[in-house]
C-alpha cells in the first residue's frame, strides 16, 4: 500500500499499462513535457518517448479520429480530453466512429480506445471547464462509461479500461485530483472487482443513496451526518455508468425500499432518470416512496461564484434523503 493522490494513482496506472503493453499509446494536448494541465501524465513522455506519449495538435476531433486509425492498426490509444467542455468537437468521431465501428464491421474491427475526461465542477473555473457530459455517452450504444471516485479505483480501473477491447470513457473527478488515499499497486487486474460492477461503499438499511465520481465522497459524508440523526444510509458508488450494475442497485433497494440518486450533471435525461426508471420497473413493489433525484439544475454550468448552488452538496443530499423518507423537507407541502 502506498499513500498517493488521485492524479498520481492514474499516472501510476497509465505507467503500468505502458510498461505491460507496447501497443498502448497516450495522446492529448499538453500531455508530454508539461505532463498535462493536471499533471496526470507527468514524466511519462520522458520515460516512454514521444511516440508513445504523443503531444497532439489542438484538435479534439483530430485526436479522436487518429486514435481510430491507430486502433485499426492494432494500437490501444489512451486519449486525454483536456477538460470536459472540450470533448464536443470530438463528439462525431466518438459517436459515429469509435462507438459504432465494431457493430458496423460485424465485429471485425475493435476499438480498444480509452478516453480520459477530467469532469465536474467545484474548482472555480471559467466556463466550459466544469461540465458533466456523461449522459451523452451513456446514451450511445457501443461505449462503456465509467467514473472513478477514489485513488485505488482510479489506479485499477484505468488499467481495466485500457485492457478492454471496447471503447471506454473514463471520467475523472477533477476536484478530487489532490485527494489522497491508499493504493495497492500490486493489485491483480483479473481478480480485482470488474469495472462493470458498482460497489456498496457505506452499508445502511433505511435508504439507498446512489452516486458516482466526485459526489461519492459527498454522499459518504451525508451518510455520516444522517447517522447522527439515526438514519441509516446505504451509499453505492456506481463506478460503471454504462452498463449500470442493476444487480447491486436492486439488492440494495429491495433492502431499503427507498432510492436517492445524485449527480452534478443536469437532471433531465440524466443518469438519475435512467436509474430511477429502471429501478422502478424492476423493484416497484419494494419501493416505499418515489425515487428522488438530487442533481445539477437544467442550466448551463453556472459561473463559478454560483456553482455551489448548482452542485449537490451535503445538505441538499440530506434534504433529498428526507424526501425519500417522508420526513420534513424543503418541498414538504408541495404536490408531486
Amino acid at each position, binding site marked *: 500500500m502506498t499513500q498517493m493522490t488521485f492524479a498520481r494513482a492514474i499516472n501510476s496506472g497509465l505507467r503500468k499499462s505502458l510498461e505491460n503493453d507496447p501497443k498502448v499509446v497516450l495522446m492529448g494536448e499538453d500531455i508530454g513535457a508539461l505532463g498535462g494541465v493536471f499533471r496526470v501524465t507527468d514524466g511519462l513522455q520522458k520515460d516512454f518517448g514521444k511516440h508513445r506519449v504523443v503531444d497532439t495538435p489542438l*484538435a479534439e476531433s483530430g485526436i479522436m479520429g*487518429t486514435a481510430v486509425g491507430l486502433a485499426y492498426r492494432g494500437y490501444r490509444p489512451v486519449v486525454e480530453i483536456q477538460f470536459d467542455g472540450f470533448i464536443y468537437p470530438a463528439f462525431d468521431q466518438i459517436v459515429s*466512429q469509435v462507438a*459504432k465501428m465494431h457493430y*458496423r464491421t460485424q465485429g471485425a474491427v475493435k476499438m480498444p480506445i480509452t478516453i480520459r475526461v477530467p469532469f465536474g465542477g467545484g474548482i472555480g473555473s471559467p466556463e466550459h471547464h466544469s461540465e458533466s457530459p456523461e449522459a451523452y455517452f451513456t446514451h450511445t450504444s457501443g461505449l462503456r462509461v465509467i467514473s472513478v471516485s477514489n485513488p485505488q479505483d482510479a489506479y485499477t480501473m484505468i488499467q481495466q479500461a485500457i485492457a478492454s477491447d471496447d471503447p471506454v470513457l473514463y471520467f475523472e473527478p477533477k476536484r478530487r485530483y489532490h485527494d489522497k488515499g491508499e493504493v495497492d499497486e500490486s493489485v491483480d487486474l483479473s481478480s480485482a472487482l470488474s469495472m462493470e460492477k458498482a460497489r456498496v461503499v457505506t452499508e445502511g438499511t433505511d435508504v439507498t443513496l446512489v452516486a458516482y465520481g466526485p459526489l461519492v465522497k459527498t454522499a459518504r459524508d451525508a451518510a455520516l451526518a444522517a447517522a447522527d440523526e439515526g438514519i441509516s444510509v446505504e451509499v453505492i458508488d456506481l463506478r460503471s455508468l454504462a452498463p449500470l450494475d442493476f444487480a447491486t442497485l436492486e439488492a440494495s433497494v429491495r433492502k431499503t425500499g427507498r432510492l436517492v440518486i445524485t449527480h452534478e450533471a443536469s437532471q433531465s435525461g440524466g443518469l438519475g432518470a435512467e436509474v430511477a426508471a429502471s429501478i422502478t420497473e424492476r423493484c416497484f413493489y419494494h419501493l416505499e416512496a418515489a425515487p428522488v433525484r438530487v442533481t445539477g439544475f437544467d442550466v448551463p454550468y453556472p459561473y463559478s461564484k454560483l456553482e455551489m448552488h448548482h452542485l449537490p452538496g451535503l445538505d441538499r443530499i440530506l434534504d433529498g434523503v428526507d424526501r425519500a423518507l417522508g420526513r420534513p423537507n424543503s418541498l414538504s407541502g408541495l404536490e408531486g
Partner: protein
Amino acid sequence: MFTDDAGKGGIAAGGPGNSENSMRRTGGDLVQLITPAGERISHPEFDPWLQDVSDEQLCALYEDMVVIRRIDAEATALQRQGELALWPPLLGQEASQIGSARALREDDFVFPSYRDNGVAYCRGVKPEDLVRAWRGNASAGWDPFTVNVATQQIIIGAQSLHATGYAMGIQNDGADCVAVAYFGDGATSEGDVNEAMVFAASFQAPVVFICQNNHWAISEPVRLQSHIQLADRASGFGIPSMRVDGNDVLAVMAATRIALDRARRGGGPTFIEAVTYRMGPHTTADDPTRYRDANELEDWAAKDPISRMKSLLERKGLLTADLEAAVAAQADAVAKELRAGTINMPEPQPLDIFKHVYSTPNSWLDRQQEHYSRYLASFGDPAEAASEEGAR
C-alpha cells in the same frame, strides 16, 4: 475562375526532371497524360513513374474501368428493380479510382468513402460485398483486414483522420506501407479533413489524400466549397500536392505512385486532386436535373475516361476484337455474379440486431435481447402458424 481545364488538352508546365524540388510541387496546372482523343502526351516529371506499365497492363486498366462501370450500372439497375435500397453511382470517376487503386501495394491500407466502389473492387472486394450495405443486409460489406480496405465512410471526411492515425501507427511500427484516404470535393470543407492535414503534416505521416473533385457535393458545386483550387489548399498545411486529370487513368496512377513513394521513403503526406466529374446522381435517390445544366454533362461526356483509354489502345494497335470480347465477357460475368450474389444474399435474422455492439457481453443488451427474444417467441413458431393457416 472556378472552372477548371480538365480535358482541354493543356499540358502542365511541370518542373524539369525528377528533382525533389519539382516533386514537391503544389497544385498548379492540371497534369494530363492522355487527351480526351486518346493521344498520349509526354510529361518529363510523370513519365518516369509509368515506364514499367506494359501494353498488357494498359489493357488491364481498360478492363478494370469497363468492369467497374458495368458493376455500377448493374447496381443502379438492381436499385431500380427494388433489390437495393440505394446506390451511389461512380459513373465518370472510373479513372480516378482505378488509376490510384492499381498503384497501391497489398499492404497499403485504404480508407474510402461510400462512392469508392471501384477502389474496393481493385482491392479484391467481392461484387456482392460491394452492395451488401446498400441492400440493408449489413452496415458494412466486408472484413477490412482481408482486403486492407476500411469500411466505407458515410460521415463526410471522417476517414481522412482514420487514415492519418493509421499512418502514425505505420510510423511507430517502422513499416513502409502507406495509408490512403479517399474523399470528395465537399469533404475538403469538413473540419476532419483539415485536421487530418494538420496531423499528417505535423507528424509527417505516410498518408496520401486522394480527393476526387467530381464537382458536385449532392447539389452544391465545388465553387461553394472553395475559393481556390482544392490542390492549393494543401500548401497551407505544408503538404505537397498535385492536380491531375482525374479522367486520365495514367495521370492518376503516376501521381499516386509519386505520392506513395514519397510516403514510403519518409517524405510524409501528399494531397492529390483528381479532377473528374460525377456523371450520375449523388445517389439513386437524387435528381441532378434540379440543379445542374445538361450542357455541363455533355462537356464532360466528351472527356470520358473509358472512351479516351479505348482511343489510346486503338492508337497503339492494342484494341483487338479479342480484347474487346474478353473485356465484355469479364464485365458480363462480374455483373452476373453481382446480380446473383445480391438476390441470393441470406437475410439477416432478427436477433442479429444485437450482435457486435460490444466485443464482450453487456448486461443491458443481454437483457433487451432476452426480452425481445421472448416477445418474438410469443407469436409461436412461424412455420407452424403457416401450416395451421393452410389446414383451415
